[in-house]
C-alpha cells in the first residue's frame, strides 16, 4: 500500500540498506514491516507509516545499550517520538517517510542536554531545531560543525544540496538549521557504489546482518553471499586500494539487483549491442522471467527496439542534452505489446573508461520520473515564464550548434520553421549559409569559445524557404541587434550559448528617415550655395565675353564666338536659377507657429536617435512664443542642434533647451550675419560637453566641415541649420568654452 504524498513511502529494500539491523530479529522486523517470508514480491513492498511505526517501535525496544545506534521511543499525546543520538541525525534524514506523518525525531546530545527536533522533512528539504534543556546553548561553532557533518552525510547519500542555512532564533534560545536538496529519487545505486568502494564498511554492515539471517530467506542469503565475497576479496588484496568499479558493474555480478532502484530496469550491452545482462527490474518491465528467456528471443537491443542500433550513436545520444534524446523508446514486450520506456545512462557511470566496451543503460517507466517539490516547481515555472515571455527572441544552442530551445517571439520574428530548427535534430545554425553570409556564424563560434558577443544592426533577410529554416520566408529585411552569451558551469567551461535577438527595424528606419530629411534639406541649402558660387563664376565669364565682343572690331568670327560664349553662359545661369527656385519651392512652408510646441515635437521625434545616457531638459518660457517659420525646417534645426549637443557629451548627460522672448536693442551680428533690433523668439540649446575649439568655431557652419570621424558625420547638419535660420531672417550664435560646454542661440523674429 503506497502512501500518497510527495514521496510515496520508502521502499522496504531501502530500509534494509539504511538501517543498522545488527540489534534486531530481522524476521520479526520484516513481519512488522508487513512482509511475510512467503511473499515473493519484496520489490512491491513499501513501508506504510503504520508499518513503520510498529517496526520502529520494535527496533527501539530491542536496541541494546550499544552506542552505535541508540534510540528510544516514546509516545506523547498522539505523537510518536523517536529518541536517538545526534550523531545519527543524517540517518534519520535518510528516512523521509518517517517524518512526513508527524513522527518527531528528537535527538539528544547526552552530555550537553541538547535536543534536536526535526521539524519537517519532505522530498525537497528539511528543517531541524535545536534547543537546550540547560540554560546554555552550545556556541555557534558547534552548530556549524553539525551542519557540516550533516551535509557530508547527505552528500554521501548523494543528495544534491541546493541550499542550507542556520541561525539563532527566539532570543538565541533556538538554533534552526535547514537544508534543501534536489528532489530526485534517492540514488541508492550511487550511494551503494560509494559504499562498495570502502569494503570494510560494507563488510561490517552485512556481517552484522549475518547473525540474524533465517536461512530460508533467499534475499538475505544473497546479501550475505555478497558480503562474504567482498570480505574475502578485501582480505586477498589487503585493501589499500578501493574496489575497482569495474568489478562492481561487471555483467555477471549479482549485486546488479541490489544496486538498482526498485523501479528501474538495467540492461548491459556490449559494442555489438548484444544484451549481456538484465536486472529484475528490466525483466519485469519487459515481461520476462529471466535473462536467458529475454536473450533467447531478443539477443540484441536492436531486436527489442525493432530497429538498428549503433553503440556509438546510442551512447552519444544518451549523453546529449537535446530534447529529442529525451523521448521514450518503444520496446517490444514478451506479450507482443509495446512498452514506452525512457532510456538513461546510470549517473555514476558517465565518463568511466569501461564504457567503451560495454554500456549499462537504465530503463525507466516515464510515469515514475521524479516529481518536483513545490518550491522547485515554482522556480521552474518562474524561469519558464521569463524565457517564454521575454520580448526578445531567445534561442539556446549547444556546443555543436544545434538549437535546443527557442521562444515564441523568435518564431514570430523570423517566421521560423520551429520543427526544422529544433525538433528535427538536423538543422545546425553554424552551417546555415544565409547566416554565414552575414557573419552570424562567426560570432556564434566566438560565443561558443566563451566570449560575450554583440552584433548591432544586423540585416536579416530571406525570401526563399529552401535556403534556411531560419528567416523562413520573411519578405522584407529585419534589422536586429544580436547578443550571444555563453553559459558556463562551475569549472568555467561552456555548455550552452544563449542567443538573443532584438528587433530594431522600426527605430532603424526612423533614423534613416531622419537622415534622409536631413539630406534633402542640405541639398536645398547646398543648391543655394552652389548657385551663388556658380553665378559668380558665370559672372566672370559673361562680362568678359561681352568685352571681347566690344573690342572685336571688324572680326566677325571673334564677335560670333564671343556671343556663343555669352549665350551658353546665360543658359547655364538660367538653369541654376531654375534649380534654386526648385530647391526653394520644396523648402518653404512658412506659417505661424508656437516655438514651445515645436520644441516638444522635436524632442519626441528625436527619441531613439540619441544615446540612452543622454536626456533632454526642456525649460520653456511661460508665455506663448510665436514666430513665422516652416515647421519642418524648425524641427530640422532642433534635431541637428540636439544631435550635435549629444555628440559633445559622449559619456552622457543633460541637454538643456530653453525658450524665451528677447528684445534686442541694437543690431546684432555673428559670423557674417546681422539682424536688426526688435523682438525675437530666442531658442537656446545648451550642453555641458567638450566645447568647440576656437579655430573650429568659425568654420562650424561651413558645408561639409566636420570634426567627426570619417563616416560618422556628414558635416551638413550645422550648415543646414545656419541656412534655415538665415532664410527665416534670424541669427544663430555660438557661445562655447572648452570642456565646459556649448550654447547655441537661435534668434527668430517674433510674429
Amino acid at each position: 500500500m503506497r502512501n500518497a504524498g510527495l514521496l510515496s513511502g520508502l521502499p522496504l529494500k531501502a530500509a534494509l540498506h539504511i538501517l543498522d539491523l545488527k540489534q534486531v530479529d530481522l524476521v520479526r522486523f520484516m513481519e512488522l514491516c508487513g512482509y511475510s517470508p512467503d511473499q515473493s514480491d519484496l520489490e512491491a513492498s513499501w513501508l506504510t507509516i503504520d508499518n513503520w511505526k510498529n517496526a520502529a517501535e520494535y527496533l527501539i525496544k530491542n536496541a541494546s545499550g550499544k552506542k552505535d545506534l541508540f534510540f528510544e521511543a516514546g509516545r506523547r499525546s498522539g505523537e510518536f517520538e523517536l529518541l536517538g543520538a545526534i550523531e545519527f541525525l543524517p540517518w534519520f534524514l535518510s528516512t523521509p517517510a518517517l517524518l512526513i506523518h508527524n513522527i518527531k525525531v528528537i535527538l539528544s546530545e547526552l552530555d550537553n542536554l541538547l535536543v534536536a527536533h526535526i521539524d519537517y522533512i519532505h522530498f525537497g528539504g528539511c528543517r531541524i531545531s535545536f534547543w537546550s534543556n540547560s540554560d546554555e546553548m552550545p556556541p555557534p561553532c558547534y552548530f556549524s560543525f553539525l551542519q557540516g557533518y550533516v551535509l557530508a552525510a547527505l552528500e554521501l547519500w548523494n543528495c544534491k544540496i541546493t541550499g542550507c542555512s542556520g541561525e539563532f532564533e527566539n532570543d538565541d534560545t533556538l538554533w534552526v538549521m535547514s537544508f534543501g536538496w534536489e528532489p530526485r529519487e534517492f540514488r541508492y545505486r550511487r550511494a551503494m557504489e560509494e559504499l562498495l568502494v570502502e569494503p570494510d564498511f560494507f563488510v561490517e554492515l552485512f556481517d552484522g546482518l549475518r547473525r540474524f539471517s533465517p536461512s530460508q530467506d533467499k534475499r538475505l542469503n544473497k546479501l550475505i553471499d555478497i558480503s562474504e565475497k567482498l570480505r574475502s576479496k578485501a582480505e586477498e588484496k589487503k585493501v589499500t586500494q578501493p574496489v575497482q568499479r569495474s568489478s562492481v558493474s561487471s555483467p555477471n555480478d549479482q549485486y546488479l539487483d541490489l544496486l538498482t532502484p526498485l523501479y528501474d530496469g538495467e540492461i548491459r550491452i556490449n559494442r555489438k549491442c548484444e544484451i549481456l545482462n538484465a536486472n529484475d527490474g528490466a525483466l519485469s518491465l519487459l515481461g520476462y522471467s529471466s535473462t536467458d528467456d529475454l536473450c533467447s528471443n531478443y539477443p540484441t537491443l536492436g531486436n527489442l527496439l525493432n530497429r538498428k542500433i549503433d553503440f556509438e550513436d546510442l551512447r552519444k545520444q544518451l549523453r546529449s542534452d537535446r530534447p529529442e534524446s529525451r523521448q521514450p523508446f518503444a520496446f517490444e514486450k514478451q506479450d507482443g505489446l509495446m512498452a514506452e520506456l525512457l532510456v538513461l545512462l546510470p549517473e555514476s557511470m558517465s565518463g568511466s573508461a569501461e564504457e567503451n566496451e560495454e554500456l549499462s543503460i537504465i530503463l525507466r517507466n516515464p510515469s515514475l520520473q521524479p516529481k518536483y517539490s513545490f518550491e522547485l516547481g515554482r522556480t521552474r515555472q518562474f524561469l519558464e515564464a521569463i524565457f517564454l515571455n521575454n520580448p526578445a527572441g531567445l534561442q539556446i544552442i549547444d556546443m555543436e550548434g544545434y538549437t535546443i530551445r527557442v521562444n515564441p517571439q523568435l518564431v514570430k520574428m523570423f517566421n521560423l520553421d520551429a520543427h526544422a530548427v529544433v525538433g528535427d535534430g538536423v538543422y545546425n545554425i553554424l552551417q546555415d549559409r544565409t547566416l554565414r553570409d552575414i557573419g552570424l556564424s562567426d560570432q556564434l563560434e566566438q560565443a561558443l569559445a566563451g566570449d560575450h558577443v554583440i552584433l548591432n544592426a544586423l540585416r536579416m533577410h530571406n525570401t526563399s524557404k529552401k535556403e534556411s529554416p531560419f528567416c523562413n520566408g520573411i519578405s522584407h529585411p529585419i534589422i536586429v541587434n544580436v547578443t550571444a552569451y555563453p553559459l558556463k558551469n562551475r569549472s568555467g567551461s561552456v555548455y550552452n550559448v544563449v542567443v538573443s535577438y532584438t528587433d530594431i527595424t522600426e527605430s532603424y528606419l526612423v533614423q534613416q528617415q531622419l537622415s534622409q530629411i536631413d539630406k534633402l534639406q542640405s541639398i536645398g541649402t547646398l543648391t543655394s550655395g552652389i548657385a551663388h558660387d556658380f553665378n559668380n563664376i558665370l559672372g566672370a565669364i559673361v562680362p568678359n565675353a561681352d568685352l571681347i565682343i566690344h573690342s572685336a572690331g571688324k572680326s566677325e568670327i571673334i564677335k560670333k564666338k564671343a556671343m556663343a560664349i555669352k549665350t551658353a553662359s546665360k543658359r547655364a545661369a538660367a538653369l541654376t536659377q531654375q534649380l534654386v527656385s526648385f530647391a526653394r519651392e520644396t523648402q518653404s512652408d512658412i506659417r505661424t507657429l508656437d516655438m514651445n510646441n515645436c520644441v516638444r515635437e522635436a524632442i519626441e521625434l528625436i527619441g531613439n536617435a540619441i544615446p540612452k545616457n543622454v536626456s533632454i531638459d526642456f525649460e520653456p518660457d511661460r508665455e506663448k512664443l510665436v514666430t513665422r517659420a516652416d515647421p519642418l525646417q524648425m524641427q530640422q534645426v532642433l534635431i541637428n542642434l540636439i544631435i550635435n549637443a549629444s555628440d559633445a557629451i559622449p559619456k552622457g548627460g543633460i541637454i538643456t533647451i530653453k525658450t524665451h522672448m528677447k528684445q534686442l536693442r541694437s543690431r546684432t551680428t555673428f559670423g557674417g550675419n546681422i539682424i536688426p533690433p526688435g523682438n525675437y523668439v530666442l531658442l537656446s540649446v545648451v550642453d555641458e560637453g567638450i566645447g568647440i575649439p576656437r579655430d573650429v568655431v568659425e568654420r562650424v557652419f561651413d558645408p561639409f566641415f566636420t570634426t567627426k570621424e570619417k563616416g560618422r558625420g556628414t558635416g551638413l547638419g550645422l550648415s543646414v541649420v545656419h541656412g534655415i535660420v538665415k532664410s527665416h531672417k534670424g541669427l544663430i550664435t555660438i557661445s562655447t568654452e572648452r570642456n565646459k560646454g556649448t550654447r547655441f542661440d537661435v534668434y527668430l523674429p517674433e510674429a
Partner: protein
Amino acid sequence: MSTRDHHRVLIVEDDSMIADVLGDIITSFGYETVWVSNGKDAINLVETQAFSVAVIDLELPEMPGTEVAKRLKRLIPQLKYIFSTGYSEQEDHIDPNDPGFYGVIRKPFEIIDIQAAIENALSNH
C-alpha cells in the same frame, strides 16, 4: 568726355575675376574705378577718398553688403550704391526705400546691365 563729371566708382567685391571685369567695363565708360575686396577696407578708404557710386557685392564674407552700404552712407551721405548679387535670396535684406539705393545687378551681368545701373545712379547726381 568732358560732359561727364569726374566720378569715382568704388567696387566692393571679393571675387577678383568679377572685380577685374567689372573694373574694366566701368573704366571703359570713362569713370575712375577703385577696387577693395571687403567691407572694412571700403570703410577705411572712404574716410580719405570720395566716391560717387559704389557697386557692392551683397554676399561679402565678413560684412554683408547691406551693412557695408549703411556704413559707407554714414561717411558719405550722398553716396549712391548698387548691389551686385549671385544669389537672389539675399535681396530680401535690402531696404528699397533708402535714398542711396540704386538697384541690383544680378550675376552674370552683361555690359548693358552695368551701364544702365551706373548711368541711372549718376544721372540724378
